[in-house]
């Protein structure tokens, strides 16, 4: 005579949850503890290299949302001068296609993630706002040289060492 459904399943489950009382919580206390994001993170706000950009507008053409706007004028040495380079970060979907498409490595995804704003207008970034600065570092997405120099990503796998 086989006995089942007499409460053993409930007991097993309760044992498991009890075991979890003694495991380390996996919570990260965010503002105090910070995890390092991936080297390839597609973080907030594009970073633009003024020197390298030739104004070819490949990025604008590759953008699925059409949020990059470039206006150029003809320069003296048969080159383009970028008059306007404006990105509406409010419409950006962070797909990274523009960065991949850039033939001169003049555009980077951002490495930061705390770039919230209070107004939508502030999300529209012009030439000056897009330049590299202390809090606006480029990420290694599609840029292997930068990727090599960034710190290692923290993984939950490393922190949660419970079972084999």
């Amino acid at each position, binding site marked *: 005579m086989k*006995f089942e459904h007499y409460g053993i399943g*409930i007991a097993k489950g*309760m044992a498991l*949850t009890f075991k979890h009382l003694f495991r380390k*919580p996996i919570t990260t*206390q965010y503002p105090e503890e910070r995890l390092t994001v991936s080297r390839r993170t597609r973080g907030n706000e594009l970073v633009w290299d003024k020197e390298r950009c030739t104004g070819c507008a490949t990025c604008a053409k590759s953008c699925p949302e059409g949020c990059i706007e470039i206006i150029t004028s003809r320069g003296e040495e048969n080159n383009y001068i970028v008059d306007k380079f404006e990105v509406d970060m409010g419409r950006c979907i962070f797909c990274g296609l523009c960065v991949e498409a850039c033939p001169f490595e003049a555009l980077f995804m951002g490495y930061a993630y705390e770039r919230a704003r209070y107004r939508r207008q502030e999300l529209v970034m012009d030439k000056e706002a897009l330049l590299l600065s202390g809090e606006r570092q480029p990420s290694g997405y599609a840029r292997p040289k930068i990727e090599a120099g960034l710190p290692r990503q923290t993984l939950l796998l490393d922190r949660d060492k419970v079972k084999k």
Partner: protein
Amino acid sequence: MAIFNYYPQTLSPDWPGGYWLHWGVFVVIILVFVMAMIMGFIWFERRGLGRFQVRLGPNRAGPFGLLQPVADAIKVLIKEDIIPAKGDKLVHWLAPVVAFVPALMIFAVVPFHDGALLADLNIGILYVVAVSSVGVVGIFMAGWGSNNKYSLIGAMRAVAQMVSYEIPLALSIIGVVLIAGSLSMNSIVEAQSIPFILLQPLGFIIYFLAACAEINRTPFDLLEAESEIVAGFHIEYSGMKFAMFYLVEYCEVLAISAIITTLFLGGWRGPLLPPFLWFLIKVFGVFFLIFWVRSTIPRLRIDQVMAFAWKCLLPLALINLVITGIEVIALPPALLWTVMFLNLAIVVLLALLWSKFFRLGGGRVEV
């Protein structure tokens, strides 16, 4: 606890002497105790659930998040009080009060210490059963007064469930009363030279399950099942009135924990530590068990809940009553340990026997 020693160890039922003083002091004590314990319970449950779920739980307000209940209370009190336009305003307004008062009234007969209770009624436990079943009226009023289909479903479930579970609840208490030979809570504690959970394991299990159903705790939390009917009867409540329902929930848990402690775990009795502390420790232990269950298992369906009460708990409670009666009459007190093991064996046997009645896949109605 000097205040307890100030009073004679046992109070006669008609409260001779400082009637008003006694009354006033204990009302204050109970109110403070209940409020403080509810705060403690909320914190304990949230932190404990957090740890069960490999997270931390609230830990920002105050040291270890101890002030979290206070912060919640302040937040909820300054919120807007919304009354549904088509609701029954009076019923909607009265419901939290009607639900809260009986929950608080239970504490009148809970002994925190030998003789330290508001009213040592000689029908103490009967009073508890009677008063605690009034709370359902408040819940039904809330469900009705809100004029919301979800609340009404929740309220209907509540009534059906609570009425059913009153019976096994009361029957399982009778076993304890038979052994103790008294209905007074204080006498029951005094009768427990060993905790009654050892003599009445089946009674304890039935009481625990039925009480969980009475106070709407998992796996019987159908009336506020957040994944089905969102919040059930208090879906339309906000602000102060919502806080009242929140208090009711924890007040009832506290009351049930205190009653289980009194009936089955030997109340304030215990070695070394002062009685009041023993009482608290046991109450927290019972509460831990309640939310441990909550953290683990899913919720039953309404027909399964009803079937469980009538087909499982009620017959088991009757069997328990008969067995206890025979033991009390036939077995000499010297055979205490034999009785203990006998009862444990009966529990195992009955659990295995009843598992044979467990049927899967039922519940579909042809429409």
